[in-house]
């Protein structure tokens, strides 16, 4: 397999640091993991780009963490192959895989100082103390935690812990970076800042990163590409725009977006549209290319920046749908009445009736 190393010359630190990142492609072929009767990962094929931020997104129990742990070498695949930088590493132990991993709890060693935490992987490599100290200071400098080196983990804030965990992961100069829901233990306010930190660092280093989350906002905001998983399979792999606007199947359509895509049933197929595309007549500009529906509104939620309208569409078996109107649409809507709403033709998505997969646009019978 041809493998280029253009990323190999990249410099880790903007400040002209001599350490350069080697960027590897992670590739997974026909990977399968069974825990007894349970199939956690069911034949996954996946290939990262160099230096990409790839997000594994899915509901809990979809197999995303198991997939990540197999890439790390913490779980043995039942079948299939894992390649890092072109080599089959399926049977290598984690320490030999040139990967780093940040855990959900950060897994800092509670009995060691920050400095010893960061130095631990280097000690395991047998690096001599002088070079080790230099490395530790460099990694600490990268994350601005030089002042914390003599503290113990329990004396750190959540954000500081994340930085220490990142420094510890990075100090070995891995070629792939694996993160397992690293933000889920932080409270909402810290989480935004920690996310910025993480993004900023990843852009600067340019290291291939695989990030597991169940939070679609994180996934959309951070990922170069997102692999949406369910029941051990990848349902769709694409950029945030692709998975949001062109979902590959009904699962992706309904998993992404809050509220999810409205789905309607019509003889022969399913079709759907996003709540924010469902607008009252007269609001949208392109009247000629829009498909009209009769929307009966039951209930309205005001959320400040937008309005959620709950109701059903008369033409389609009274299926429940939601409309989301931005605050800029001030048109009065009254409850328990029919309203004329419409969706732009190119915003309608069509799915197979049986397996839910995306299909070509179909004419809507009126």
């Amino acid at each position: 397999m041809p493998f280029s190393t253009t990323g190999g010359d990249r410099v880790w630190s903007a400040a002209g640091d001599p350490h350069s990142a080697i960027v590897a492609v992670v590739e997974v072929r026909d990977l399968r993991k069974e825990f007894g009767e349970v199939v956690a990962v069911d034949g996954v094929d996946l290939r990262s780009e160099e230096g990409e931020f790839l997000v594994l997104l899915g509901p809990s129990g979809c197999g995303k963490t198991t997939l990540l742990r197999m890439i790390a070498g913490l779980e043995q695949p039942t079948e299939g192959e894992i390649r890092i930088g072109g080599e089959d590493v399926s049977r290598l132990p984690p320490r030999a895989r040139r990967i780093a991993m940040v855990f959900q709890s950060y897994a800092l060693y509670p009995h060691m100082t920050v400095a010893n935490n960061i130095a631990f992987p280097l000690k395991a490599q047998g690096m001599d103390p002088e070079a080790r100290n230099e490395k530790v200071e460099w990694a600490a400098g990268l994350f601005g935690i030089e002042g914390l080196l003599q503290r113990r983990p329990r004396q750190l804030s959540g954000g500081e812990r994340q930085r220490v965990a990142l420094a510890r992961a990075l100090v070995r100069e891995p070629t792939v970076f694996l993160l397992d829901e690293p933000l889920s233990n932080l409270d909402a306010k810290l989480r935004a800042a920690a996310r910025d930190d993480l993004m900023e660092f990843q852009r600067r280093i340019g290291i291939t990163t695989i990030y597991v989350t169940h939070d679609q906002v994180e996934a959309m905001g951070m990922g170069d590409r997102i692999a949406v998983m369910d029941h051990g399979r990848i349902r769709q792999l694409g950029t945030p725009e692709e998975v949001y606007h062109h979902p590959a199947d009904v699962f992706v359509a309904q998993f992404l977006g809050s509220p999810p895509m409205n789905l309607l049933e019509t003889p022969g197929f399913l079709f759907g549209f996003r709540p924010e595309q469902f607008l009252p007549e007269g609001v949208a500009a392109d009247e000629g290319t829009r498909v009209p529906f009769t929307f009966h509104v039951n209930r309205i939620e005001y959320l400040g920046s937008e309005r959620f309208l709950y109701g059903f569409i008369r033409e389609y078996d009274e299926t429940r749908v939601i409309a989301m109107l931005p605050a800029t649409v001030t048109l009065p809507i009254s409850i328990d009445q029919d309203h004329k709403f419409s969706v732009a033709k190119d915003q309608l998505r069509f799915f197979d009736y049986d397996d839910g997969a995306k299909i070509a646009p179909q004419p809507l019978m009126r």
Partner: protein
Amino acid sequence: MTSTTRQPRYLGDNPRFLAGLFMSPAVIYIIALVGFPFVLAIIYAFTDISTGNPDLEFVGLATFRRVLADPVFRDSLWNTFLFAVVANVLVVILATALAEILIRDFKGKWLVRFLVLLPWVAPVSLATITWLWTLDSIFSPIDWLLRQAGLITENMYWLGRPGTAMTSVIAVQAWRIVPLAAVIVLAGLIAIPKDITDAVAVDGAGFWRRMFQVTIPLLAPIIAVAVLFGVILTISDMSVVYVLTRGGPTNSTQVLSTWAFIKGIEGGALAQGAAVALFLLPVLIGITAVVLRLARRREVL
């Protein structure tokens, strides 16, 4: 619930009344049957009470002087210390190793666990009897194996000679405490977060580095608990020594507990027996201090 100024209407809902009611049986029981005998033990040691002379007549430190003058007592004191230290060093090492084995999955684990638990769950005196028979002077199967291997020609008389008798007593003590200590350490191992174990694997630490730089430091408090139980069991237990050697040959394996029993119960010299047993008290106070320390450390961690 209710305001502090008003008493709840039902006595049963009054926490302070309930606390007193609930605590008193335990407190009374313990004071009557631990506190009182404890004080009595101290009083006895300053009298010369015996089964023949049951009057409490204070003799000051005379009893202690008599006890201390007895070379058997000094041997017992030394043996108690030696047995506790050596047995518990063995216990810590073996129990940590055993816990590391039992936390892993392997074929036949159920059977191994069953067999390994036997020395601990069998009543001590009965378990010791199997050793008494295993170390029999004539029919010991160990001796038979050694004879077959050509290593010895005469039997070892394990329990008949001071050196081997002491080794045997220590080994049997360690043998029966290891399972308990291993279970305690195992509980500690299970409580180590999985993320930490995984991080160690990703960070590239091998078996020994993981063991000595992560596992053992993290387990230090719980290993201390195991040692604590081990020390209390070894210094206060008399069944192993009593069943195996009765302190013999010629008092070479005598410990404080057996000596107190032989003096106080079998010999009827209650005051001397109590004085001998009291020498365990400083050790116990020392251990207590360690426990309290640990309890405080755990809160900090």
